[in-house]
Every structure is written in structure tokens, then in C-alpha cells.
């Protein structure tokens, strides 16, 4: 079951949008970070089931944070949520180990579909 969700994005508006797109009755616990560095620290501390990661952030960008998270936990489920819709950027984050890439602005159906896929992976892993 997905319980702990970490949202890493420098925009409080983007974090609010993401939370609002998730089903309310699933009992999710939300954790938030405003940059990649804090996101990485929170990831290590709470070990979330799923992490949503923006790419363009101050202090530490999403690429670096993703890379470090994957080094810490190679099974981490990191969903990149970004305004950067360039194919090269998508390829780069997938190569770094992202589970999926979602483009901003978020679509509720896409987001819930990705979470369902993440849920299946977690279920298989036991």
C-alpha cells in the first residue's frame, strides 16, 4: 500500500496542485520539500513509498536529487513532475532511474494511473 508520499517542488502552488489531484480517501501521509537538498534529506529520514520530484529547483535540482536518491535506494519509486517537456530531459531522468515522468500541468487521471502502477510494483515487492 502507498502510504507515505514525498513531494519535492520549490513551488507551493505546484505542491498544492499535486496534493489536490490525489484521492482524498486513501489515507496518504504527505511530506513536502522545497528543494532537492531538503528533499533528499527527507527521503532518507522518512523513506517514502512514492516521491514526486520537480526538476527545476534552487539549491539542488531534481536531476541531482534523483541521482542521489537512487544511489541511496535503488528501488525508490520517484515520479518526476516537470514543466520541462523536452525529450532529452525525459530520457535523462529515465536513465537516472525515474519510475515515470509526468508533465505539468498535472492531469488527475494520469497521476492516479501512475500511482496505480506504483502500487502494483510495491505489491509485487511485498
Amino acid at each position, binding site marked *: 500500500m502507498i502510504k507515505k508520499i514525498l513531494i519535492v517542488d520549490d513551488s507551493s*502552488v505546484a505542491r498544492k496542485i499535486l496534493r489536490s*489531484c490525489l484521492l482524498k480517501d486513501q489515507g496518504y501521509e504527505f511530506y513536502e520539500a522545497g528543494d532537492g537538498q531538503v528533499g533528499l534529506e527527507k527521503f532518507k529520514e522518512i523513506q517514502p513509498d512514492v516521491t514526486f520530484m520537480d526538476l527545476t529547483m534552487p539549491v539542488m535540482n531534481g536531476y541531482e536529487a534523483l541521482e542521489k536518491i537512487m544511489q541511496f535506494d535503488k528501488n525508490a519509486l520517484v515520479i518526476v513532475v516537470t514543466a520541462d517537456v523536452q525529450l532529452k530531459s525525459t530520457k535523462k531522468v529515465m536513465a537516472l532511474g525515474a519510475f515515470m515522468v509526468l508533465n505539468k500541468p498535472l492531469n488527475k487521471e494520469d497521476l492516479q494511473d501512475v500511482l496505480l502502477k506504483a502500487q502494483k510494483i510495491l505489491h509485487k515487492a511485498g
Partner: protein
Amino acid sequence: MDTRQDEIISDEEIEILQELMNIAFGKAAADLAEVIDIHVILSVPYIKILQATELLDYIKDEIKDYNNINIIEQKFWGKFKGDALLLFPSGAGKKLLAILEHEEDTTYESDPIDILERETLMEVGNILIGACIGKMAELLRDVVTYTPPRIIVENFPHNAIPGKQYDPNNTAVILKTVFRFDEGDVNGFLFFVTSHESIKWLGEALHKFMEQYE
């Protein structure tokens, strides 16, 4: 945020605008990458709201180290309407050309602008302004039309900013960013100068945009 900015647009509206600009700039970068086959590294855009009459002093301060500047200007009309100004230090066109042609940039800022550089700036400006304004309009359920881009080249930056032509009640939305490419960086500033009515509409449209996520 200074008092005047707070009077024009609220903190909450600025934050929503920042996120929408981020999305719009992402679209602009993707369009540019597709047209000229380069990878644009997105940076966090900085947004500031000023009275249009303050724009000239703001830009002069930002570009005080530049001898020459190039501005690409496009007017746009919709519920959100105004002037879009994309400002590059001179030499940016040559730098962009060098990036596009994968050649070493051996020119200097003081070199006169040539036709190829002018066309490159116009094309890049057209793509960036069109994608930024167009995406923002789409997100806010507006439709905009544009004039063709025109380029202003000046030896004296303060001559190039058409600040004096603006109504003192108009508002300037500044989006400052650095266009970074895998092959090198180009500094750029994007400004929208818009009317009081447009800003009022923008504020309402930003709240409506967020309503779908309540």
C-alpha cells in the same frame, strides 16, 4: 515583495503566476529545442511586478554592464494583452548562432549586428515569446494573437526601452531567466508590459485556474 508590487497583485497570485510561467517557459524551451535541435536547461524563473514607468530604471540597472542590447518586441492581444519584450545583451545573437552551428564563438559584443544574427534573434524571440504567451493563455483559457516580431538594436540601452511610451497605470511583469544550453549560456530577460485591466483579468484568471484544484 515591495509595497507597490503588493498593491498590483497579491503574493498568492504571484506564486500561481510563477508556476504558470514555469510551465509556459518549459513549453517555450521544448519548442526551441525542437526547431533548432538543442537541449535547453531550464532555470528557476524570477518574477517581479513593476509599474511600467519603473521598467526603464529596472532594466538599466540589470544591464549596466552591457554596451549594447538587442530587444525583440511583439505585441499580443487577448483578454491578456500588451507588449512582450525579450532582451538580450548584444553578442547573444552571435552566441546563439555559434551554438546552432556548433562553432566556437569568436565574435565580440562590440561587433555590429549582421543580418544572420538579426534573423536568429528574431526567430528565437518569436519562438520564446509565442510559446510563453501562448501556453499561459491556454492555461488561463484565453486566446491571443500577435504582431510579427521586430528587433530593436541600440548602442545606448536606455534608448532601446520604450518605457516612456507606456501609460503610467500600465504594469510590467518581468520574467528574468538565463537560457542555458548544453553548449553554453545566454542571458535573457522577458518582460510583459500590460494594462491595469489586463492585470485585473489576470488576477481573476489565476484564481479560476486554481479552482479546478480545490
